[in-house]
């Protein structure tokens, strides 16, 4: 959604969206099965550097994007640090029980969350959603009815946001934009959700009817306005990811930062 923000088109923007997705998604699984915090720290550094150098965004914007992730880091690691199991006690106060094991496990979880965040941000900031869905239709044969539904929904987003503001102002004028208590808050969500959802449903229906009358079919043999192909940049990305993974692994073995090799 932020692709309208000023940025340079780097080679990361030139990669094939599907290829990028298929390279990033397995990393999720790989990261989940890494239990050595040293490896994750190296990877976090490596991929953050890749992101900062090649996302094409200005440093101050990148720092703004990364700010919420510090919250995630703290909040993900804190409950494990404070309440996790462990043998070597560092600190105990009431229910809070910080141990060496739980501390490293918490930090490990923080880095894990940070890595997921970097991958997500790197993908979102260097991919145009429209091209992603065109590419999914062409490279992995996603059915057109799904792809075009997503494309239409993305187009509707600005209208929905405008509608939200209209509803908000209407409720504010009637002093109905605030509520107290859990029940009240849920009622409030409803007050916003009903008009937005019902309008969206009507609009979706109209668009679907219009598409079908204009001859939209789910036939996969079709021409595409945007031809999205694989290219050399996808190979570059693959090589870079492999290098960061391998070097990070090797360095963690040779020059570990912390003595803990397995946080479980």
């Amino acid at each position, binding site marked *: 959604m932020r692709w309208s923000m000023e940025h340079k088109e780097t080679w990361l923007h030139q990669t094939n969206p599907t290829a990028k997705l298929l390279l990033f998604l397995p990393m999720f699984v790989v990261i989940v099965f890494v239990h050595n915090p040293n490896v994750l720290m190296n990877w976090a550094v490596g991929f953050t550097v890749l992101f900062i150098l090649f996302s094409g965004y200005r440093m101050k914007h990148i720092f703004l994007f990364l700010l919420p992730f510090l919250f995630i880091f703290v909040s993900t690691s804190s409950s494990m640090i404070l309440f996790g199991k462990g043998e070597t006690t560092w600190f105990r106060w009431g229910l809070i029980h910080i141990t060496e094991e739980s501390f490293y496990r918490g930090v490990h979880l923080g880095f894990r969350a940070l890595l997921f965040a970097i991958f997500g941000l790197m993908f979102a900031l260097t991919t145009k959603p429209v091209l992603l869905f065109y590419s999914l239709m062409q490279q992995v044969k996603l059915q057109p009815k799904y792809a075009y*539904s997503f494309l239409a929904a993305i187009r509707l987003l600005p209208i929905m946001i405008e509608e939200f503001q209209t509803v908000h102002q209407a409720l504010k004028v009637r002093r109905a934009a605030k509520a107290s208590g859990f029940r009240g808050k849920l009622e409030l969500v409803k007050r916003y959700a009903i008009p937005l959802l019902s309008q969206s*449903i009507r609009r979706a229906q109209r668009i*679907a009817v219009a598409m079908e009358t204009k001859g939209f079919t789910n036939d996969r043999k079709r021409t595409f306005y945007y031809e999205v192909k694989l290219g050399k940049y996808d190979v570059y990305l693959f090589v870079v990811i492999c290098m960061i993974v391998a070097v990070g692994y090797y360095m963690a073995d040779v020059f570990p930062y912390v003595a803990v090799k397995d946080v479980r």
Partner: protein
Amino acid sequence: MQTKGLKLTDVLTTVVIAIVFGIVYKVWGPLYYAVKPLGLHIDQLIYGMWFIAATVAYLLIRKPGVALLAEVAAASGEFLVGSEWGLEVLLYGLLQGLFAELVFAAFRYKRFDVAVVSLAAIGSTVASLVLDFYKGYIDQLAWWNLTLLISARFVGAIVISGLFAYSLVKALEKTGVTQLLRPTSKEDYDSLDQ
């Protein structure tokens, strides 16, 4: 033209609703980590919001596959507008949608009451816990803390994605839009006979 599976109308409506929830999911993120540092898993009570797309879409459109599609689409929407959790939301969305879908399938897509959506919310909760088990080492939390986490998440899921989702759809029914969506039911035919 499109005989098998969902029709374009169903898919489009599901995806559009789901994207609305995708934005809610995104806004829910900051709220979630704002209450998280309070400790003791109060945040888990609002976790259930992340399962609501599946149950609402199913209650509205009442067809097989809608719950899964809605949850995946909502997760994609959340991801594309820049979720704090990044790519991980896609996997969570996929699994949560799948578990909700399985609950609806177990009732052969014939029940649309508050009990069945609450069960679907429980299904999604189980899915999220399975992923947390691998990703977050939650089994390594002290037992009282883990119990608190799990029960808070279940309660929140049932309240938000079960009861609240149901009442939301009931309110939407009053606007009349649901008549556009649902396949003609037996009652409709019966009313013609009279």
